[in-house]
């Protein structure tokens, strides 16, 4: 069993009720059913095994990953953004790798979080590593430590935009920075 | 088309073998492990191409297993092996 402390790290909609858990379980069961259908190439005779497996996987999933809020529109908006930016990231890093003069000037950048801790931060940290010239190096309480491949690039604004997309995806409103008033 | 699939698979195998140089060279343990990580991704692509070339769908399941387990060895490295060699080597 994970300790409570560890659980809190991922819990971000505290005090979820039984109904929310049930709804989450249902959504995940549908998702796993879809995956099973994909895996088995839609074979009808597979459901004898498939139904218990999907149920078990759902059970384990709900146990491990507490329910979180998300928004369909946010996902639809996020996907093309992500695909385009990650393709660009590949082109960017390939160009630098092939260039004989190796044009890189690394830097460690501290990015102040606006997202709440938990899944949204983890999701953003993982996405950052796939976007042009940035690599998440540590997930701090206040900052995301980002390794930047080229310190002359416009990574700061890129991170801000990404954070907004991620907030959208989780159906959140970003907290405006109060410390700067 | 088969010739294209096979040549790309061969090419990927070549880049994979070239990546071995990093395993031998290091300098840190992480660099060596990274090369192994590269192997995982490249092997997935390679297997998918072979599946297409020989028109043999079960090979996609092999690629799926590779993809699912791409992280296990690297996580073991970060959590165990690299954590343990804390005191002695930063340079090597």
């Amino acid at each position, binding site marked *: *069993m*994970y300790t409570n402390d*560890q659980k809190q*790290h*991922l819990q971000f909609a505290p005090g979820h009720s039984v109904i929310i858990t049930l709804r989450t379980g249902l959504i995940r069961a549908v998702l*796993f059913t879809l*995956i*099973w259908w994909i895996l*088995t190439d839609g074979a009808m005779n*597979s459901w004898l*095994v*498939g139904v218990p497996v999907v149920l*078990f*996987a759902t059970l*384990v*999933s709900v146990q*491990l*990953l507490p329910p979180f809020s998300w928004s369909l529109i946010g996902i639809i908006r996020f996907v093309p953004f992500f695909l385009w930016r990650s393709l660009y990231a590949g082109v960017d890093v390939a160009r630098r790798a092939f260039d004989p003069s190796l044009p890189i000037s690394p830097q460690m950048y501290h990015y102040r979080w606006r997202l709440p801790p*938990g899944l949204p931060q*983890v999701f953003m940290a993982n996405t950052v590593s796939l976007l042009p010239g940035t690599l998440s190096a540590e*997930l701090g309480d206040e900052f995301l430590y980002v390794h930047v491949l080229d310190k002359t690039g416009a990574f700061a604004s890129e991170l801000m935009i990404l954070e907004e997309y991620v907030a959208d995806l989780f159906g959140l409103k970003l907290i405006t920075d109060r410390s700067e008033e | 088309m088969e*010739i294209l699939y*096979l040549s790309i698979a*061969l090419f990927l*195998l*070549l880049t994979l*073998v070239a990546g*071995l140089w990093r*395993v031998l060279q290091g300098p840190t*343990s992480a660099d*060596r492990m990274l*090369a*192994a990580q590269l*192997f*995982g991704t490249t*092997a997935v692509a*390679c*297997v998918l191409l*072979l599946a297409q070339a020989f028109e043999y769908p*079960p*090979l996609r*399941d092999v690629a799926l*297993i*590779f993809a*699912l*387990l791409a*992280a*296990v*060895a690297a*996580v*073991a*490295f970060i*959590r*165990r*092996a690299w*954590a*343990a*060699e804390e*005191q*002695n080597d930063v340079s090597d």
Partner: protein
Amino acid sequence: MTLLQLMFDTLLGFSLLWLAWQALTSPDLFRAIVLFIAFGLLMALTWIRLDAPDVAMAEASIGAGLTGALLLSALARLGSKNGSRAILEKKHQAGSMTENTKNQLPFRLLLMVLLLAVAAGLVYVVLTLPENIPGLGILVEENLESSGVSNPVTAVLLNYRGYDTLLELSVLLLTLLGVWSLGDMTKQHESFPGPVLSTLSRLLVPLLIMAAGYLLWVGAHAPGGAFQAGSLLGAAGVLLLLAGWRPGTRLAGLPLRISLVLGVAAFVAAGMVFILLGRQFLEYPPSFAGVLILLIEAAATLSIGITLAALFLGGRPKFSQPKFSRPKLNQPKSSQPKFRRHK
């Protein structure tokens, strides 16, 4: 086309030999293990080239995943005792390079000659093997219909050579008992896994369960089966353990033990039932065979997965003692003096 295949095979073959050589002679133990992991990956590609996808699946999950994790974890424990692994290793290397090798040079030469003779003998034997021997393949194919499955490898494993598989499951159990007999699970100082690793494991484990279920099902008619599925479950367990999860004391008692022996038990039970019905041990009637194999495989998958994860954990996990051996904790206090009076 054939030229490309030949090039692919040659490159793969030489890489395998070179990797093995490098892994076995590397002065740094860690480097040796990473090279060995890479070796496992290339082995999986080799099985694909040899038209053995079932074997490739087993190798992809075990050779490239679990073995690597086991070796790295053992290396960590080897080094953590006094933290001077690299130095010791280097000293040893330096020593063996100068003095030992000189003394041992004639010995090594002799050894190499002998090994070359062994290799030459092996090559001779294999190259003079008769061509076009049908082997058992035809026999398997002819009887495939009565085996209950249409994947010949699964038919061999679970039906024709059921004895082998049963004993193999027992071997797996025995190795775990061997590991457990060496001592209890030691407490390792592990840092907090961090949210990224924690999330990774929480996302991957349900998917690994799905994939294991899929391989279990698909094994009846295409590459896949209990061993591949079991090793995916094992990998799920290893991932959870690496992310800081430990079986609770209640889980580590009877539930763990039951699931460990489930595979062997299901196999033996299926064999015994048909003895009572007047058949041979492990001989299934063709009409039931399909369902029966699926049930045995499901049990075996669970056992294999949990055994592999337990092997990774190392020592025997702590479990709660049976209740009757100690006073209940929630007993009301007033009842305790009564106890004493009886004494």
